[in-house]
């Protein structure tokens, strides 16, 4: 956060006609506040899932067992992508735009692989959204998370698109890059909880 010495009235008269954006960039604060709010959405879904699980005789019911190997590989991909995107953030802080682009491209490919893996899982499971209450929860929760992965992917692609222009991002001007990274970490953390609840807990 940059600070400049305060003047007596907070702004010099020359600053008066300056437009709305005449204040430091608070977008990261805004995004974090938004994600706190978003996490309550997932919090509600997790709570519902656990209550349903506690009330059910068999969870998941026979015939709607989850697959484990593919989602585990998927988890591995998504968790590693969080480190990859962080390398991109490190790169831009050293003003290495090209390196940042490669790391972000790799993250995007990993994210797309995750989504493809999830789509393949949906197609190969043999039960659908309406089969039973577990299937309802399974598809709505993973689907809602998948939607977030998709949005994160769009943000990363947006960063890649904008960074074509030289000078758009630099070591002291990279809020957009940082926001895409924060969002991606959020999506990742949610997935770890989701994976634990839906997949790992079925083993116990």
């Amino acid at each position: 956060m940059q600070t400049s010495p305060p003047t007596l009235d907070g702004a010099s008269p020359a600053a008066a006609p300056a437009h709305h954006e005449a204040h430091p960039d608070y977008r990261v604060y805004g995004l974090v506040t938004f994600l706190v709010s978003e996490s309550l959405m997932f919090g509600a879904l997790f709570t519902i899932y656990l209550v349903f699980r506690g009330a059910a005789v068999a969870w998941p019911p026979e015939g709607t067992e989850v697959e484990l190997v593919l989602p585990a590989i998927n988890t591995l991909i998504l968790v590693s992508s969080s480190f990859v995107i962080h390398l991109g953030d490190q790169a831009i802080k050293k003003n290495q735009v090209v390196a940042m682009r490669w790391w972000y491209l790799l993250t995007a490919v990993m994210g797309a692989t995750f989504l493809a893996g999830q789509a393949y899982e949906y197609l190969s499971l043999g039960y659908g959204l309406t089969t039973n209450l577990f299937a309802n929860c399974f598809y709505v929760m993973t689907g809602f998370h998948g939607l977030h992965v998709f949005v994160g992917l769009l943000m990363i692609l947006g960063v890649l698109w904008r960074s074509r222009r030289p000078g758009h991002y630099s070591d002291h001007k990279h809020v957009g890059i940082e926001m895409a990274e924060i969002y991606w970490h959020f999506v990742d953390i949610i997935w770890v909880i989701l994976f634990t609840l839906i997949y790992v807990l079925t083993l116990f």
Partner: protein
Amino acid sequence: MTPAQIPVQTLVPQGEHPPAWKWYDYFTFNIDHKVIGIQYLVLAFLSYLVGGVMALGMRAELYTPDSDFLAPAVYNALLTNHGTIMIFFWVVPAAIGGFGNFLIPLMIGARDMAFPKLNAIAFWLNPPAAILLMTSLFFGGSQSGWTAYPPLSLITASHAQSLWILSIILVGTSSILGSLNFVITIWKMRVPSMKLDEVPLFCWAMLATSILALFSTPVLAIGLTLLFFDINFGTSFFRPEAGGDVVMYQHLFWFYSHPAVYLMILPIFGIMSEVIPVHARRPIFGYKAIAYSSLAICVVGLFVWVHHMFSSGTPPWMRLFFTVSTLLVAVPTGVKIFGWVATLWGGKIRFTTAMLFAIGMLSMFVVGGLSGVTLGAPAFDLHVHDTYYIVGHFHYVLFGGSVFGLYAGIYHWFPKITGRMLNEPLGRLHFAMTFVGTHLTFLPMHELGMKGMPRRVAMYDPQFEFLNHLCTFGAILLGLSVLPLLINAIWSWSRGPKAGDNPWRALSLEWTTSSPPLVENWPVLPVVTVGPYDYGTKESS
């Protein structure tokens, strides 16, 4: 805090602004917080008129015990949409979107909100939401009340119910985006010379409101999304016959909708804390107590929702916990009430219309608040659950509280918003009609409820007829009471006497700029030299 925390960067000016906005600017995607505030206020007031006509339709039906004026399905649609409109399209957008947007940057000495574009996006989610809700009426209107409990919401008017859900999710998204904007604005954008204990109490109240909205709204969004899936995509989250759970929906719904009560009253508390000291010419009593009690309401308010569900098979330990937390909310609320009364005590009270409405709000809210405390006790709550006692209670809180507070705010800030004074005699007429009308409409409902008249039904037992006549007469008076305000506002907006910068001789920052304020609020940002409530001191009498 130290002034250094608010760095003011001098960026390159980005083009010239028009000296003032033209009328058509108010119909466009405009990022000025004042334009957005007025957009919210006007849209909300139009919704208020629509919701009011719906209420009059219901009161006309309830004039007689039989269902003779409206078909029962129409009555159900009216009661659902009356509640929905008054909550989601009138009180919340007017108080939070309208006054919040217009006043907060002016009060803290900022040129705009932290995220002006996001602010405009948040507003422009509202008109499509209103259109969706109106469209639902052409599909018969949703029948299940504003609570939309399954199974009723799953088996009646599914198209209308789906449109209703989409409408509410849009409004909720708008509310989340608006709230995060308020939080960052209040926290980060205060003018450097403003100390933390010089922030006007309206901003404290809006901070609490916004935090509450950020925590509760997403949960409602999930509940409604799952309901939407149940209606349209064959899932069974809330279908008991397939393993689902109807009470689960109630938990999700009230986890938002009880805090929603505070979303509707906390900004009003803020308005009260501004209006009362100005017109009583006394410093607010207990600034810190009032400021922190908003935050206390915000925290405790998140843990009281099950008191709406005492009759939903709630286990005893849950009843006990939520009774205690419910009664606990009365404490910070009481702190505020006593703070305002103590501010009035010994003040040089000017009975302007704004002050009349503020005092009216104080008296009515105490009635509604106390009946709320009675409802916090399960034994009594089970007796009057889903009767007119509830209807009477929440109308005292939401009409006597929120709407009176909004009226006080309108009369107080109309000169700042438009640059013209409202007509005082017409304002007094408006107050008298509203005050009498409110008591006449909602006081008899308490007795009706104690005697067992169920709410949300188009027909009732003939023994309740007399009291229902009183309610209907009161409702007609309330309907008419809007006319003096409408005439007053429309006439004064173009022909009222010029207000000047500070007609009430108030001390908060919004009164240091011109009326209506300039596009960038001030040519040079103001310097805070006196606190917002330092009335009657040497510097400012």
